[in-house]
């Protein structure tokens, strides 16, 4: 009877103590927090299976996992969050979007204060549809290359994505269309990010710059601090997940009960439903718990001199102003595994203007077309080991971490310039530090 006690003891650990994993294999992002309780264990694995589930067109014999579409982007969550890691951008116009989606809107503000969806295509291009229903069309990514030169003569080829569309089934998108191509971010450690108190973010924004996004909390019917999504455009993990089921897979839930068909999409509106809603609350609970309790990889090689030097440069270049190494967390209201303490996510969860080069020109609640949420950097050093193909930045344009740094502009321009002008040894040390995360 000793065994069942053990997880409870571990559960008393604070901050990310019970949330670190030493696994560095390709399963590094799929490990349960060691504080996972025996009661939560089956729910965690149920959530994992739903995250990996390939969803089915209704009606089906497996009525617990049907209801895909009518229009959708991919058949499963894991398609865009491969091995729970990040997605990637297509290599060029000849390749489909496999781990990426394109958000759409027209100028104005939507009913909930967010982007105003395109009247026909909605707020996201759904590239696929179930048999008998017309998909919306395909997005195509071309690249324009340019070269950036670093101190010491190293030249880096940077590719700027240019988006276009083909096979649009409901007519052209129109001249005022706003688009935002995004790859799926990694999904570990999110329960910890959820536990950073709102007032910590607000205080940080006042003292160090950056902005808190304020978004619509559907469950509470109120405005709330945004923290998930690449523009901090979702308030809670639960809503982010339900929105993904709805927008990316076409699966309805109690949070988003209507199918994602617009008025013009007749066949879409007439298609058979997989239940009302298609995703049960129990299933939503399970996916939420799963993503809340995924462990974060432990750092590696921290004692190595170049890693330590890189860490110092990360601070002196000003990277740490936005990629804040340490944030406090409070007890999670629903997850006893998450206790007051501190975490090391290398983000402030705030919006920053990263300049014209990275801008998508598509505002999202308070976030402007130039603003993005500081990407958490924990675990980034394992990204390429875990994923077959990975991209960096919101749209995966950067093929390497170095390219990602070189795309920083706006508020981050001084930091980027310090990096670009640093001597090659220093740059290597900084990259070594990022690899150790």
């Amino acid at each position: 009877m000793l065994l069942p006690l053990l997880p409870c003891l571990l559960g008393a650990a604070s901050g990310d103590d019970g949330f670190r994993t030493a696994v560095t294999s390709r399963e590094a992002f799929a490990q349960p927090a060691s504080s996972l309780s025996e009661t939560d264990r089956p729910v965690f694995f149920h959530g994992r299976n739903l995250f990996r589930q390939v969803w089915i067109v209704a009606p089906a014999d497996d009525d617990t996992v049907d209801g895909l579409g009518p229009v959708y982007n991919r058949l499963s969550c894991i398609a865009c969050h491969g091995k729970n890691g990040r997605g990637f951008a297509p290599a060029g116009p000849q390749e489909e979007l496999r781990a990426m989606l394109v958000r759409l809107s027209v100028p104005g503000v939507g009913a909930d204060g967010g982007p105003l969806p395109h009247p026909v295509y909605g707020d996201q291009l759904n590239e696929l549809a179930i048999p008998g229903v017309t998909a919306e069309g395909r997005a195509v990514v071309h690249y324009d290359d340019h070269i950036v030169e670093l101190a010491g003569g190293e030249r880096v080829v940077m590719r700027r994505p240019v988006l276009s569309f083909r096979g649009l089934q409901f007519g052209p998108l129109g001249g005022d269309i706003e688009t935002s191509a995004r790859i799926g971010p990694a999904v570990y450690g999110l329960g910890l990010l959820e536990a950073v108190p709102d007032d910590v973010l607000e205080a940080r924004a006042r003292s160090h710059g950056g902005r808190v996004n304020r978004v619509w909390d559907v469950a509470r019917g109120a405005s709330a601090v945004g923290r998930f999504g690449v523009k901090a455009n979702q308030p809670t993990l639960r809503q982010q997940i339900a929105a993904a089921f709805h927008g990316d897979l076409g699966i309805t839930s109690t949070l988003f009960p209507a199918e994602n068909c617009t008025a013009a999409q007749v066949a879409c509106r007439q298609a058979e439903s997989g239940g009302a809603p298609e995703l049960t609350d129990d299933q939503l609970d399970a996916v939420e718990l799963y993503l809340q309790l995924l462990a974060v990889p432990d750092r590696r090689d921290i004692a190595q001199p170049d890693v330590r030097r890189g860490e110092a440069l990360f601070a002196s270049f000003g990277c740490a102003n936005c990629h804040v190494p340490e944030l406090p967390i409070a007890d999670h209201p629903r997850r006893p595994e998450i206790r007051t303490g501190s975490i090391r996510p290398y983000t402030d969860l705030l919006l920053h203007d990263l300049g014209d080069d990275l801008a998508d020109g598509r505002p999202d609640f308070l976030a402007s077309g130039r603003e993005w949420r500081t990407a958490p950097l924990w675990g980034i050093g394992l990204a390429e080991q875990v994923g077959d193909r990975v991209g960096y930045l919101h749209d995966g344009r950067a093929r390497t971490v170095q390219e990602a740094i070189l795309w920083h502009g706006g508020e981050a321009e001084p930091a980027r310039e310090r990096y670009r002008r640093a001597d090659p040894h220093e740059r290597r040390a900084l990259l070594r530090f990022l690899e150790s995360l």
Partner: protein
Amino acid sequence: MGGELLRRMSGVALLLMTAAAAAADKLVVLTSYPEEVFAKFESAFEREHPDVDLDVVWRMPHDAAPFLRDAGRGAVDVYWAASYRTFTTLAAEGRFQPLVVDRSQVPGRVGPFRLSDPENRFEAVEMAGFGLLSAPRVLAVRGLAIPTEWSDVADPRYDGLVVLPVPSRVGFAPNMIDTILQAHGWHAGWSLVSRIAANAKLMDAGSMFLTDEIAAGRAGVALTIDFFARSAIANGAPFAFRYPSTGGYSFAHVAVLADAPHADAGRKFAAFLTSSAGQALLGDRDIRKLSIRPDSYGADAEFNPFADTSAEPLRYEPDRGIRRYALINALFDQLVTQRHAALKAAWHAVRQAEQAAASTGDAEAFAAAAAARRTLERLPVAAADADDAELLAVFDMRRRDATAEARAKAIETEWSDFFARNLAEATRQAEAVRVRVAGR
């Protein structure tokens, strides 16, 4: 999200509607492969055939035939899955069109094992073998070697360390259990299964995978299908996998539907799957299936089914298997799943009796212990009845036919009484041996 709002704007929406743009050649593939498998084939196929837009429709194997007969009729081009049974059923219904296959490259068999349809209506695209996944570190703690044969894990030293999937609940397991039964024979096969079960923790269709149990150190060895094991190993798990000499294969197929709207594209896809390029994808660390092309195996291949040198070539009749899975599953549930604790206790008692008898050399004790074991190994279904068409039909039809279900239930009750009685009897006989030996 903006659904409500959009609904109110239908006027604008209709104005913007235009004729559909000319579609590239489309292709609809019905499959039951997981995302990590089909996505790799999808990208590679689209790279080779940029003119074809491939859509994947997903169904569980048991739900594919109903779908193709009904909602999917005339909408699907290709069926691609690991479900021999579904392929044979649909082929018999005349739903496939014949494929042209180059038999010099794609033999459609491994040794005596036929993989593909003799009438070329469906073609094998990959194989997977059954075997033993182990965690050498966990076994080393008990001083145990990596097991290589099914019988190794029937050894009492593996007690508590084994994971055994329940065939009525876990997709690949009926084929695996039947592989053991066909290779070892009906009686000896069930005895082996029963002894392994006595050492095992049972795994049903819950959310945990066999590999989770092993990875968490909760078990040391699992009976499984190779790709779970080999892909976990390729992804960095500290496991080992062995193919026993009486292992067997399960295989997957592809077929082009007779009423395929894009039959040309469908044939391209089928040809791609069996081509060298398609088969090379099977080696991907997230897939790890075995190629059906002998020329895919280099000299350094980890395992080459075409070079199987065992003296006893694999004897397995897949058609016999699909006829009797339902019966085997039901029998397994009555012998193992429904009375796991009692089964473990009975084997424990019999093994102790055998040891006690061996320690004394008492011939009568020996004979009594052997009798106890025979009682425990008794089966309510004779070997011949296991291929009896009428009996098999009862179990095979039970999900679809109320009379069959009632009959199956009644038979299961008889089996249940049979096993309960014999387990109790064997335990009593074993106890008697121990008492006799202790009293000497």
